[in-house]
């Protein structure tokens, strides 16, 4: 049975997987970046389909709009002729392919191992079309209140339903530290005067 949810899922899943594979096989780092952007943008489409609208928007905004721009920035800063595409030996390919293939098989087996996972509970299009109303609950959850779990049936779980205030704060501090750290790593350095400069062997080569 093909409904629009299936349609779009197939579309996005195909884009995601195809471009992910393209990232792997592409030798040119700039093209890799482009493929990665396409792949991750399609992932955000998958999120929309899974009724995770806020996460999807965040994926677009932070991941695609922020992180990947940063990546591309890095690519361009370092994209000098010889580094744009660097070949590796077939043996390396083989090794990586074997390891990755084994992992893939393992994951595929795991993904299809539970029967309940293979049957959608309701016609998936309805809730997905409605779109999740997840913004406010997520916001409340980050403030420490789980509005979605107030009517938790299992009383044992109800008491344990905590919000995400602490992780949220930890992540905030983490982000701050990361920003400082990144700025420090890529900080301005005083360039030596040419007369005192130590000849750099790798550069001259």
């Amino acid at each position, binding site marked *: 049975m093909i409904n629009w949810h299936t349609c779009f899922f197939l579309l996005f899943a195909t884009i995601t997987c195809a471009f992910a594979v393209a990232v792997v096989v592409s030798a040119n780092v700039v093209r890799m970046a482009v493929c990665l952007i396409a792949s991750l943008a399609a992932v955000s489409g998958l999120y929309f389909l899974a009724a995770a609208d806020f996460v999807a928007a965040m994926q677009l905004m932070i991941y695609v709009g922020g992180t990947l721009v940063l990546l591309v920035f890095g690519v361009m800063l370092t994209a000098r002729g010889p580094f744009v595409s660097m070949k*590796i030996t077939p043996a390396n390919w083989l090794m990586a392919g074997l*390891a990755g293939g084994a*992992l893939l098989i*393992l994951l595929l*087996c795991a993904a*299809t191992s539970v029967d309940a996972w293979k049957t959608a509970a309701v016609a998936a299009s309805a809730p997905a079309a409605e779109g999740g109303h997840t913004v406010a609950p997520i916001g409340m959850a980050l403030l420490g209140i789980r509005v979605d779990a107030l009517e938790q049936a299992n009383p044992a779980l109800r008491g344990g339903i905590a919000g995400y205030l602490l992780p949220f704060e930890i992540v905030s501090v983490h982000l701050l530290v990361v920003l400082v750290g990144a700025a420090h790593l890529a900080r301005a350095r005083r360039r030596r005067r040419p007369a005192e400069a130590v000849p750099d062997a790798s550069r001259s080569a």
Partner: protein
Amino acid sequence: MELARLLPLLLLSAWLLPLGSFAAIVFAGPRMGRGGRKAAYLATGAIGAALVLSLAALGAWLWHHPLAADSQAVAPLSGDWYTLAEFGKLRLAIGYYIDALTLGMFVMVTLISTCIHVYSIGYMREELGEVTDPLVRGSDGGPLVRPGRFPRFFQYLSLFCFSMLGLVVAGNIAMVFVFWELVGICSYLLIGFYIERRSASTAANKAFLVNRVGDFGMIVGIMILLGGLGTFAFGDHLGAEGKVEPGIFSQVRPASAEHGLVVPDGLVRMAAADRLAAVYASMPSADAAEEEIARQIPQLRRAGYGYGLLILAGLGIFCGCVGKSAQFPLHVWLPDAMEGPTPVSALIHAATMVAAGVYLVGRFYPVFAPEVLLVIAVTGCITLFLAATIAIAATDIKRVLAYSTVSQLGYMMFSLGLGGWAAGLFHLFTHACFKALLFLCSGSVIHACHTNEMTEMGGLRKKMPWTAGTMLVGCLAISGAGIPLLIGLSGYHSKDAILAQAFSFARHAPAHAWLFYVAAAGAALTAFYMFRLWFMTFSGKPRVEQVYDHAHESPAVMIVPLVILAVLAISAGWTLPGVDWGLPELLEQARPLGTAEGFPEARTIAGLVVPAEHHSHAPAVHKIVSLAAFAAALAGFLIAAAFYGLRLLSAAAARRWFAPVHWLLVHKWFFDELYDALFVKPALFLARQAAEIDRGVIDWAADGSARLCLRIARIDDWIDRWIVDRFINGLGRWTWRLGLALRPLQSGQLRQYVVMIAVSTVTIFVLISIYRNYAFLP
């Protein structure tokens, strides 16, 4: 507003304005315009505003207490602005004690300071930019080049004015002492303004140290008064319970004794402490003992207990004044203080530093016993003569003026000591005017000639007419020129009053008649050396062409203060006919209670009577003294004119005739050498001995303990090396071997690690699934 509230407010504002300008310049000085130019305007504006406020205060005072020919003493206003602390009954406060003298001093200080500020704007102009000081060698051997200190100069001036005004307005002796020291600090800073010059820094140190000698005596005096009277305050003020607590003055001269000099109870108790302790021991209760003591005190007082302490307190206070006012034997710092910029000299000599000593003697006048007064008079007399003689031989224009100041200060002390309270302070005021004038004129000359030596000047009258004219006025004023018995320049009036008091004193105490003759001779000497100065500088032919060609009249900003001061130097001593407004009348309003009628006869010196001042106004005294003084001044002038003006006599010849005297005078009576031998050399010797002890004894002990520590450490070292280290090293070696074995695993290849992670993950999962019966597999 009533006077009692208005005056403190006005004076407080006038007093704090220079402090505000000081603070502003401290924080923002160099940023005020280019080179700090605007700092000068700020400081001048502040002191000018203070002058206006002071004049307003004086006006308000005169409105309430108009002057008259027979002005009576007016009760002073005293009180506190702010109480800093209270220790039991002892109060530390920022207080005020305002009478006509305070107001007069305020106007005088602010007026002179304003003139000097304005003058300094011109005089210190070089400090705006970079200054090349030819008198100092830099490290490279060339003349020192340093940034200008224009704002700093005005910053110091402001602080100086603030300190002096604080001293004048101070309502208690603790505050006096604080500002007394502040004045000393300021003079130290300003004398050492050209700090790179060795002579300047030495002079600043000298001024500071010599003043400390005097201050030591002053502290003794203050402590005696504090211990005996239990208060710092001058005047009466309301205590905690609304009770009037008597101040120092009313304790020494209680109203109950018609303001006669009475040894206060406290001093009597201090002096008779042994006997009172015995009383305490004998009486059953403390109250009864107190009663008994109160009964005994009049007897003790009559027996002379405490009088010695009173004398000692007076001498102590005077000792401080000797230092500050450069009296013999502490006069040595003042001539050296000429190292500061000339406006500073003017300020020190005219309005602030040295005036402080005379002012304090005047302020503490009620406390002095006749014996103290005699000491003051004799000190003043010696000083005036000594300084005048040295001035004759000096050739540095500023030093001549400096010695003349010392001499004139001697006159003031002399007068105060002889009971001429009003005369002495009158001379303080007039002297401020003409001495400021003289110094500023000399500054103008130095500014033009770039030298201090009168032997290089001469004939400057044509080049610098304004300076020459105003300086002539100053010379006439200081010499006491005038038409006898009629009118004269300011110095004429004040010096006449002093000599008249001396004459009167001599009539009452013939044993001390020599004081009068010395003072009269001093008057002649004054005229002589002042006109010697004027003639050498302004008349005759130029001695050094180069200097003469270079000389020029000073800018208007320097001339205007000169003219203002010249007018004051002429007219400060006048009493306006008809309304009888003049300085003597103003001072009469401030005369301390009980001193108008003279002092009781001294207890220790038979026949010593300090006459009341009004005796000296008697025509019999006045006429004789006027004529004598005029004659003395005229004689001095004529001799000077003969030597230096008309060149009838040869100065060089005179120098040869009186070679030993000249030698003595040129070396300033060998005071510096004497002090060097007496104090400086022994001090250095002691210091050297102390250094030897330090090196030989203390250092040896320290070295010994260190050596001991070293021994212990060696043993420790052995244990460390042979027991602890071997264990640790063994551990390390085994770790090292293990690391070597694992080393190849870490290839440094990032991609290899990734593959390893993937493979191991898969392996772990596969193992788990085998263990769990293939739970993960479909």
